[in-house]
């Protein structure tokens, strides 16, 4: 029986070590803070979050000058493996260990689940990597902030700006799951609202689709001017790559409704050129973004930050500033109080400039419509985007009146 018992006890002991000793928040130094990055470190969103998000959080701690100001900040990380129950388990454990802030969490399903935990434990949560606008809609709560972007903003920027530029007729290729549908529905609505027309849509099985040629042919025969890709990650890469093979890029404008800089890097400019997309941060946008990127690059030499990761920087920095401003560690440990204080204070950092957080927890930043450069136009490594248009924050995000966030009614 020895081994079985030892195994059982061993497991129990590990659990105990994790759960019991930090339960009483060790604040010997007076001002210790813990930030946990929960992200995808081993799966398809690793490059859009993962190690680079951790690098950005650490950069924020450094830029804030935590040591000089007398804070002892620990940055932890956990891999949610794109499984909501793993994410929930991690978040609970982190919060119980005295973690003050969980940040990043790409993948809306995992983010929604963790948002619930943050509420139960009354601790702060900043989502930067996930797209679902429902995070600040019916699932919003007083402990959570959605940074960086959401599906509604992508639809407004990419859909609205392209119709204005003459792309009146659209054909969509949509990943057949909630995120794809949301992206499609919101963009299609914007297209119609601006006087455009949707000529067709295919819902393809997600995941398990690698070949998009059939859908591309259908798009081509529809005669639409714009091909809207309501998908993400490898699916977008595959659809753009194959559209290129079929010569679609010569006949239609291709709009990637959710494309990160890292995806463009994966495609290569030869393929990605002229793709239209929206991000709320681009490293080479202005002097401040370049300065931030220059600082953070030594921590993530092979992967430039894209908007989700820059959001982790911005969110962490604002969190630290707020804690410092509150000057009351006990109040800062109360998620609702902390987040309320974060909402009260305007944000300002190198990645996003001046911005603010709305009552529903929506971080309000501008949305930028970019065109991907042709290989000849790109002068330095990762120099990929040309700015086409800016949608101001107030227009980019869903009005609180129609969002249905319970916090706002109160």
């Amino acid at each position, binding site marked *: 029986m020895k081994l079985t018992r030892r195994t*059982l006890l061993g497991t129990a002991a590990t659990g105990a070590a994790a759960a019991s000793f930090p339960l009483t928040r060790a604040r010997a130094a007076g001002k210790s803070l813990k930030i946990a990055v929960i992200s995808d470190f081993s799966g398809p969103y690793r490059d859009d979050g993962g190690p680079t998000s951790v690098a950005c959080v650490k950069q924020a701690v450094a830029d804030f000058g935590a040591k000089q100001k007398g804070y002892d900040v620990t940055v932890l990380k956990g891999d949610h493996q794109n499984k909501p129950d793993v994410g929930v388990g991690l978040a609970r454990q982190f919060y119980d260990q005295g973690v003050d802030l969980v940040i990043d969490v790409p993948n809306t399903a995992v983010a929604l689940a963790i948002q*619930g935990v943050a509420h139960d434990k009354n601790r702060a949560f900043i989502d930067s990597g996930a797209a679902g606008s429902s995070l600040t809609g019916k699932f919003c709560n007083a402990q959570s902030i959605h940074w960086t972007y959401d599906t509604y903003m992508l639809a407004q920027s990419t859909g609205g700006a392209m119709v204005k530029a003459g792309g009146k007729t659209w054909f969509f290729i949509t990943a057949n799951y909630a995120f794809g549908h949301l992206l499609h529905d919101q963009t299609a609505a914007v297209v119609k609202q601006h006087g455009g027309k949707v000529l067709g849509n295919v819902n393809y099985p*997600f995941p398990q689709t690698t070949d998009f040629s059939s859908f591309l042919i259908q798009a081509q025969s529809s005669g639409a001017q714009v091909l809207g890709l309501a998908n993400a990650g490898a699916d977008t890469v595959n659809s753009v790559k194959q559209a290129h093979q079929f010569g679609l890029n010569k006949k239609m404008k291709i709009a990637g409704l959710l494309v990160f800089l890292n995806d463009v890097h994966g495609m290569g400019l030869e393929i990605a050129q002229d793709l239209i997309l929206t991000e709320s941060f681009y490293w080479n946008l202005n002097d401040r973004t370049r300065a931030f990127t220059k600082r953070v690059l030594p921590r993530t030499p092979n992967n430039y930050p894209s908007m989700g990761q820059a959001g982790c920087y911005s969110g962490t920095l604002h969190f630290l500033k707020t804690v410092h401003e509150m000057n009351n560690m006990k109040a800062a440990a109360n998620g609702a109080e902390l987040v309320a204080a974060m909402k009260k204070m305007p944000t300002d950092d190198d990645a996003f400039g001046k911005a603010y957080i709305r009552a529903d927890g929506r971080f309000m930043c501008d949305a930028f419509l970019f065109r991907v450069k042709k290989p000849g136009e790109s002068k330095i490594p990762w120099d990929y985007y040309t700015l086409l248009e800016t949608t101001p924050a107030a227009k980019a995000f869903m009005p609180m009146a129609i969002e249905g966030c319970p916090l706002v009614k109160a």
Partner: protein
Amino acid sequence: MLGFTRAQSAGFVLMVAILLAAPFVAYPIFLMQVMCYALFAMGANLLMGYIGLLSLGQAAFFGMGGYVGGYAVQSLHLTPELGVVLGGLTGAAIGVVFGWLAIRRQTIYFAMITLALAQFVNFFAVQDTGFTGGENGMQNIPRGKLFGMVALGPDLHLYAFTLVIFLAGFLFAHRVIHSPFGQVVKAIRENESRAISLGYKVDQYKWIIFIIAAFLAGIAGALNALVTKIVTLTDVGNVTSAIVVLMVLVGGIGTVFGPLIGAAIVIAMQYYLASFSDWVTVIQGVIFIACVLLFRRGVVGEFAAKLKLSL
């Protein structure tokens, strides 16, 4: 007692003692998840260990059990114990159909049919955003009040509830194996054609075991929904089907305590390896390989073999 050997009785007493003490030293949610997956794995173990069939689609029962259980509690406002029962019945009902199709085939064909059938359930879960919540899943499932009286919100209350169901499931699975019915099942595994020639309707036995496994998976899924307060596509996905196989394998195929130990190890890996972040997949793969090459009998099996006990 209950058909236990002496070693098994000792093991059982020890297990109950540890599970009673555990929530005061370890993380209750972690322990509850271990028990949920242990129930799930006990079903898979009945299939793998006692009739020698590998199913690659167990997640269909676990996930649908979770969805129905979660729906019952969240939208129909039923009490949690009813949710769990409904989850189990859902698993069993799907098991009746899938089993009827799958048990006609052997080994690899059986595995592939279960995989294919699970694919349909997965397809349904992705499509139907009204019931399953699609990609977002079912969120914020309330734990409710047991029999409408005892609130399960506090972790320790839910822990007690989970423990009772787990022990009931454990004894039930054990009872199945040690009944005359179970003896026939074992005879089928040893020599199927002989069992047939003795006049046993082999397919019916297999079918019943399949349904029992699906029932346990459904119970486990619904219970897991109460514990984690969510049900998502992961729960009906192929990865979950693979994970339960891994649990049985690590714990020890065909052992009584294997599923619990296997579940504890695999869930602990998910919890504690998460901080190794980048290496989770690699480590899981290495464990798979190591189990096949070095510990084919699993932790419990190897240990029992060393002591010449049956555990």
